[in-house]
């Protein structure tokens, strides 16, 4: 039910807070571990979780998420498995859950069947980095029918026309890609980012704007939170989840949460 995302942002707006949206790769290295991570993220105060769906050719991702995806594929995870996984954890959490998947698995699944099954399992929204607005009319129709939010990406290279288009098509929130680059690259906190985000907000019609790609340290998260409604952190969490102890990860998440306000 897509209302979960809206309700969460409405509440944050009332409270004057900003959303923390962590990304994890589903099934890296096992579904059991992902289940534990979801619990840990909820405890740490996440407002929404982005669940990565592994794909053989993740062309928008940097080395960290590529490697995480390879581990998840190794574990036999795919779009169908991720939807089943959401159905299972939906029994335990009311946190908004958003899938981040490449387009071909959705195309192969069938857009209508995907929207129906994902929404039915308790997925709230979907982000598809290689599906620009111009190619998404079919998916948008199906997603709307099943109350699944379609979250599109806007980029630093997008001109006003594109920003407007992306803002209009997005539901739930709008995802602003902070850098010209791939996931996990280095963030550049410059005036350009502030300018683009405020431009996007101007066109968003009140829809929340989330910023992601390259946010790694609590300081960066704080800086981005001062511009946007939500901060997305992916590669940095995926890396720590894969290499550090649970205690270290929890500590890092606590710092991120505290920085996003």
């Amino acid at each position, binding site marked *: 039910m897509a209302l979960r995302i809206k309700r969460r942002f409405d509440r944050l707006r009332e409270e004057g807070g900003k959303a923390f949206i962590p990304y994890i790769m589903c099934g890296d290295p096992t579904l059991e571990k992902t289940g534990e991570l979801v619990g840990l993220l909820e405890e740490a105060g996440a407002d929404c979780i982005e669940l990565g769906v592994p*794909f*053989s*050719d*993740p*062309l*928008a991702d*940097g080395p960290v998420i*590529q490697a995480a995806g390879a581990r998840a*594929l190794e574990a036999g995870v*795919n*779009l*169908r498995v991720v939807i089943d996984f959401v159905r299972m954890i939906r029994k335990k959490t009311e946190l908004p859950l958003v899938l981040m998947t490449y*387009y*071909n*698995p*959705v*195309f*192969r*699944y069938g857009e209508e069947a995907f929207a129906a099954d994902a929404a039915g399992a308790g997925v709230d929204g979907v982000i598809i*980095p*290689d*599906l*620009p*607005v*111009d*190619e998404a009319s079919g998916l948008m129709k199906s997603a709307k029918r099943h109350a699944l939010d379609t979250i*599109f*990406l*806007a*980029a*630093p*290279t*997008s*001109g006003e026309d*594109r920003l407007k288009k*992306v803002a209009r098509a997005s539901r739930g929130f709008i995802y602003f*890609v902070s850098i*010209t*680059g*791939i996931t996990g*690259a280095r963030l550049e906190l410059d005036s350009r980012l502030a300018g683009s985000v405020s431009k996007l907000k101007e066109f968003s019609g009140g829809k929340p704007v989330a910023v992601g790609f390259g946010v790694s340290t609590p300081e960066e998260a704080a800086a981005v939170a001062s511009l946007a409604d939500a901060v997305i952190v992916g590669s940095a969490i995926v890396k720590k989840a894969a290499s550090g102890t649970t205690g270290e990860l929890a500590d890092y998440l606590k710092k991120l949460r505290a920085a996003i306000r």
Partner: protein
Amino acid sequence: MKRGYFGPFGGRFVPETLIPALMELEDAYYASARDRAFQQEFKALARDYIGRPTPLYFAKRLTAHLGGAKVYLKREDLTHTGAHKINNALGQALLAKKMGKSRLIAETGAGQHGVATATGAALLGLECAIYMGSVDMRRQALNVFRMKLLGAQVREVSTGSRTLKDSINEALRDWTTNVRNTHYVLGTVFGPHPFPSMVRDFQSVIGREARAQILRAEGRLPDHLVACVGGGSNAMGLFNAFLKDNVRMTGVEAGGKGIESGEHAARFAGGQIGVFQGAKSYLLQDEVGNVLGTHSVSAGLDYASVGPEHAFLRETGRVRYTYATDEEALEAFGLLSRLEGIIPALESAHALAEAVKLAPTLSAGKLIIVNLSGRGDKDVQEVARIKGVEL
């Protein structure tokens, strides 16, 4: 038809970051097509630098050996750098320079497109980085060194299957990161719009020349065209000028070790419709949409998808698609070398393998044009390795 589409195939499935660059490229490309000065500059380079027109050669001894239709070879192997790839690479390099880009990147499988792009970059004074899978770097070591000699940086790609598709992923990641100063010289009629149309147009000089040449030589159009299809740029280049004519066309995919073995790159014989690296077309994929590994003795045909216009031409029935196995291609490779003194690229040998099957079924009055898309120097080492010959 929706812009950038060939029937239901094609489109522009890439991250938003690249969309403005593709729109800019589309505008620049269509403007250049109308820009007389640009066209004259390109034509002069094609003549003086690439060496166009390339000959249309009647393969007399091959024809006699096969005993049937007359076989003509369109000699793209005689272009500067040794393959048709230069037609497109130079065109795009010129366009990039006009667009004010200072850096070119490209993917390469067999190395021919990488060499062609590195050549264009050297000629026009642009920076250049070429992405190449580590598997391909081994089997095309000669081309790796050529690219380096030409001043390009060769970046080894050791993710995924370490072949062409992975090089394209890396090139797209580079482009996404450096899009403001970099042009991505995509080497085939694939990827997001406008690449399939633009690359076809840069390559269509092949068919325009062949059409005029066969009319001069035989006083009539050919009965059959045959070309190999990896992404499909040499085939589109040859076919495009004949699409409205009463001429049969055959595209030849890489059959690898045979379709039933699963080790091949025959997308039409073994794939389904999918969306990959920017375009909707036929794709070798599993039931959940992950892209499958491919196999071909020829690095240039070793790719999981195929140009969207080919998918369209297949759907409308205009072009017939078939495949040749590694073994058949290697046999044709040897045959042309011995009978005509021409060592073909292993890619082109797939087209020849089809001509070997086709010519004897036709009467002596019929005409076949085979696109000899590249020369085989780059493959000599790999063929020796396969035959167990130590050099």
